[in-house]
């Protein structure tokens, strides 16, 4: 059972604001989706075959300095910047 409090809690974890007037509708939507997801609980799993479906292994490289992007390039897309750094927020 998905409650309003559940939705408020996961919204906080997701760093999203859900306006009070949308909370009921969203709780209902989430309940429907979770009911649908619950169908997997009827399935029996024979073996523990957790993850690595795509046969991946770690890819490592030599610990050498390689060419990267100049900071001016990277900062071009920053909404706000100050003194060659990303500006997270203005001081109050």
């Amino acid at each position, binding site marked *: 059972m998905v409650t309003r409090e559940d939705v408020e809690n996961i919204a906080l974890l997701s760093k999203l604001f859900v306006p009070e007037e949308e909370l009921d509708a969203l709780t209902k939507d*989430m309940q429907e989706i979770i009911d649908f*997801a619950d169908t997997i609980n009827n399935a029996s799993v024979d073996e523990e075959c957790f993850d690595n479906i795509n046969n991946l292994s770690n*890819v490592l490289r030599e610990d050498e300095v390689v060419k990267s992007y100049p900071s001016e390039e*990277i900062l071009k897309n*920053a*909404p*706000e910047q100050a003194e060659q750094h990303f500006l997270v927020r203005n001081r109050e």
Partner: protein
Amino acid sequence: MGTIAKIHELLETKQISCEELTKQYLDEINKANGELNAYVLVTDKQALETAKAVDKKIADGEKIGMLEGVPMTLKDNLSTKEIETTCCSKILKGYKPIYDATVWEILKSQNAVLLGKTNMDEFAMGSSCETSCFGGATNPHNTKHCSGGSSGGVASAVGGNIAAYGLGSDTGGSIRQPASFCGIVGLKPTYGTVSRYGLIAYASSLDQIGPITKSVEDASIVYDVISQYDPKDSTSQGKKGPNTFDTLNNDIKGMKIGIPKEYFEGVRDDVKEAIFASLKIFEDMGAQIVHFDLPAVKYALPVYYIIACAEASSNLGRYDGIRYGYKTAHYNGTHDMVCRTRSEGFGEEVKRRILLGTYVLSAGYYDAYYKKAQNLRGTIVSAFNKAFECCDVILAPTVPMTAFEMGHAVSDPIETYLTDICTVPVNIAGLPGVSVPCGFNAKGMPIGMQFIGKKFGEAQILNAAYKYQQAAGENFKDTKWGVKL
């Protein structure tokens, strides 16, 4: 019908210059895009520059490659250096990547003519292209219907002849479903064959880039070029074996084509009939039809939504208003800034999937949902492995229906999720799948079917699909739009 091979021939034999051709495409985009809404950005200047370079090469008597000078498009989640890449989300408006996606780097080096970036569901989350912040792309066969999604813009552009081909991405069917809806070909390659570097992530263990084209031959040509090992993608493996193009026309006598019963449950009659009609064509070519059960796929859809949303909730954590994209105008402290930025920047469906993903990963629910889904993922992989012991390729519907009307998908999330029921198993198991047109329903809307192969079995599914098109015709219907060649 403006295939790659046809355009290559026209350019090589100097029947048309690349500049002339590119201008034709740009003119047609101008005329059609108001209604199709396929392009969200037209890169005319760059397209014409490349076209001129190709013309110079031809004038100098140099040989040109198959994709050289062919006008094409990229889904707007593929990074293009200095060219706005938005994922059709408000949160990335104005973002200009400082590097190219590997697939675009490869095509650019071959002088592919980029006409522009195409429409998609926001962050590739949707099945009708309508979650795009630019509004959805429409279907070139009937603009009251949607293009499908999430790579709806590419499919609408290729189906509407305002691009020769395009690249999309497929996480749960986003290449194959819109290709099916728009009456064209869409190939989702084996996980790892095409580099995902520069593809803006939705669900990294499922995402794969692939071509959307007018014919199976074109899909093979593009796939052979883009399937290269890339050290910048740690999951990259490249293609195994020779080019798929070399074996397209191989005899399929004795090939075992598997028909899984579960894929046809709940599929509309017009779709079923079109696919069953194709079986006769295969039998006439000497292929063997094998009917079998694949019960594990009935859990594929909930498994997909749990895994995809879990990965998305993590991947989309990067949109915080600090490094790129949208930032809220007024805020009170860092937490408030991040929350406002994300709440104002993301659309409804994206928020819904982030919330669902956070829910299934949160303490108390992780074992019941995420871990169980991952275990079932393993079960589905085993089921496919077993299926391929009795057949060489699997044939199934791409979508249980034809393109629905605009506005239909938005009303009910679960009903919309159900349209992905035939496409998601391939992503879960990391297999290749190609959707091919197999007819039209009474209302003139295209029907598609998909061939599913073993891992790295692209050559086999493209061979089967090509032979089908040779025998049955391409089932391609020119629409009123676009360049006529």
